[in-house]
């Protein structure tokens, strides 16, 4: 806290190799970023792009068979290779994560009060009664109606939105420094999505946490984070200030995502544009630019090697060798 400039989390050249049914495959390659205290970072891309794998790598929650390379530092301390027992002390305490699926993220056998109080009992020295009081206060803060009465209820007695509020309370119990939210609203009704995102934004601001928000929805990213990274095929293809990226999209994939976004109020019958093709399976990732198979302006040299990151603005990088063409073509509108 004294040193406001030192990054809280610093990831350098992160790589993850996973065992798939077709042998080991690189799920994440060359991911680097830094996150300072209180900053918010978005991670966007179609499903299967490696967003969750990146998040799980930060949490040390990948399967034992996963091989992780590069460096992840939390307050300067290296996390790659940390034994699980040491990681346990960080998880839920300094780094927390909320998941897509509030239906399954809670244990059906325990009361919600127990599940929210549990991290407090484990990581802090409070008594059971204090933890319970704290749990009620948290549940109240995340907007669970009648928190003090419903603290002893079981997860199945709540709606999806309420359960996501409960998992948020669980994740925030120990005042973590970093919150990773992996598609926190994807499984919820559209009407509730906004409320939950607002709640998360409020809590992050209120507690001065850093947040990594993961979503496949550019709209969610645009409204909720200061900086963003676009992922495709396990690599970050574009990164920068959210405003800068939305003003001048450099990567053909980002542009494609933007064109393909569903728009409210679009005329009936208007066909949604999509990016042709699908996200490749890990084992089928092309050697060079991971997007080459779906890119309209791909050339032979795109497939030769993973393109380097090109700076197209202040702290705005694009992993493409043809940004001159992609950005000249009018970028966003094209």
């Amino acid at each position: 806290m004294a040193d406001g400039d030192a990054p809280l989390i610093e990831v350098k050249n992160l790589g993850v190799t996973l065992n798939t049914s077709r042998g080991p495959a690189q799920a994440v390659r060359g991911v680097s970023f830094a996150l300072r205290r209180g900053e918010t970072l978005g991670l966007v891309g179609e499903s299967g792009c490696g967003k969750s794998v990146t998040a799980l790598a930060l949490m040390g929650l990948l399967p034992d068979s996963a091989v992780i390379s590069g460096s992840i530092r939390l307050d300067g301390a290296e996390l790659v290779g940390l034994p699980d027992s040491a990681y346990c002390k960080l998880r839920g305490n300094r780094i927390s994560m909320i998941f897509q699926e509030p239906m399954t993220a809670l244990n059906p056998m325990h009361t919600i009060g127990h599940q929210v109080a549990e991290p407090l009992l484990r990581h802090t020295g409070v008594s059971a009664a204090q933890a319970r009081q704290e749990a009620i206060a948290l549940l109240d803060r995340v907007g669970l109606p009648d928190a003090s009465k419903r603290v002893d209820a079981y997860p199945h007695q709540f709606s999806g939105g309420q359960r996501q509020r409960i998992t948020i309370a669980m994740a925030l119990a120990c005042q973590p420094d970093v919150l990773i939210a992996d598609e926190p609203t994807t499984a919820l009704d559209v009407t509730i999505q906004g409320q939950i995102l607002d709640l998360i934004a409020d809590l992050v601001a209120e507690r001065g946490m850093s947040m990594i928000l993961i979503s496949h929805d550019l709209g969610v990213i645009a409204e909720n984070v200061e900086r963003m990274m676009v992922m495709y095929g396990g690599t970050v293809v574009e990164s920068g200030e959210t405003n800068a990226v939305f003003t001048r999209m450099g990567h053909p994939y980002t542009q494609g995502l933007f064109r393909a976004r569903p728009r409210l109020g679009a005329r009936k019958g208007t066909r949604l544009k999509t990016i042709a093709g699908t996200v490749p399976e890990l084992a089928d990732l092309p050697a060079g630019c991971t997007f080459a198979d779906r890119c309209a302006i791909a050339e032979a040299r795109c497939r030769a090697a993973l393109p380097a990151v090109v700076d197209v603005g202040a702290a705005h990088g694009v992993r493409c060798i043809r940004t001159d063409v992609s950005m000249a073509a009018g970028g966003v509108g094209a």
Partner: protein
Amino acid sequence: MPSSTRASRWPTCERAADRIRRHRGNRTGRAAATGFWRRALRHRSFVLGAVLSLLVLGAALLSLVWTPWSAYDIDVASKLHPPSAAHWLGTDVLGRDIVSLLLVGARSTIMVGVIAVGIGLSFGVGLGLIAAARKGWTEELIMRMSDFTFAFPAVLSAIMLAAVAGPGMVTSITAIGIFQIPTFVRVTRGSANAIWAREFVLAARAAGKGSFRITIEHVLPNILSILIVQATIQFALAILAEAALSYLGLGTQPPQPSWGRMLNDAQTLLFQSPMLAVYPGAAIAIAVLGLNLLGDGLRDLLDPRLARER
């Protein structure tokens, strides 16, 4: 995998279907427990299995307080009597009352089953949980060891144990118990691995829980129903194994009555008094059938995936 572009274009439709599916799948735990007995009483094989199993249990309990005659009193003068008012099913070659022998035999059977399954459960479940929690070489070692043990049928391990420790009830219980361990290891590890892959375990780990706590708080409660079903079926197997071992003279020793022992005694008189073999045979069949039906019924009733379809 459906095309991911589609998934992102039409999020709400797919999600709605998902949510409905999940919601139905979620009726585990307490919500389902309230309806358990209502469904159980309508489940035919569960009811029949429960009745037969309770019959055997009742016989064993009754033998503790009352038998028509003493099952230990030898009265050669009244040997091989046909059924009569005094001896409802007649007497055996030593003049012992068959009904009394069957009642006391039920006690040995249940005792052997309980202890052997207890041994199998405690070691097997423990090792299976460790294998699932630790993975890696620990899991490999546990699984290879249990494969190795599994290769020796109960009868073979009982013969080996009997050679070392002498035949008897303790020997047969130990042998059957050891034989049960690998099955429980496999069933436990398999179902525990499935729980370890569930998202709430990931969430628990993300909240900083270690593997011991996750095993106790998340894995064990969620595989309990599978273990109950398996234990029921293993109980039937233990009863069969005990009968086989006693029949071979490796199990329960005289004068302690046992169904397997009674079969053995009946063997030499098979043409003279065939009913002597039928009674213990029927008792064994009732116990084994009852437990198997009970196990099947419990599996249907406790497995949320199957229960949903009903």
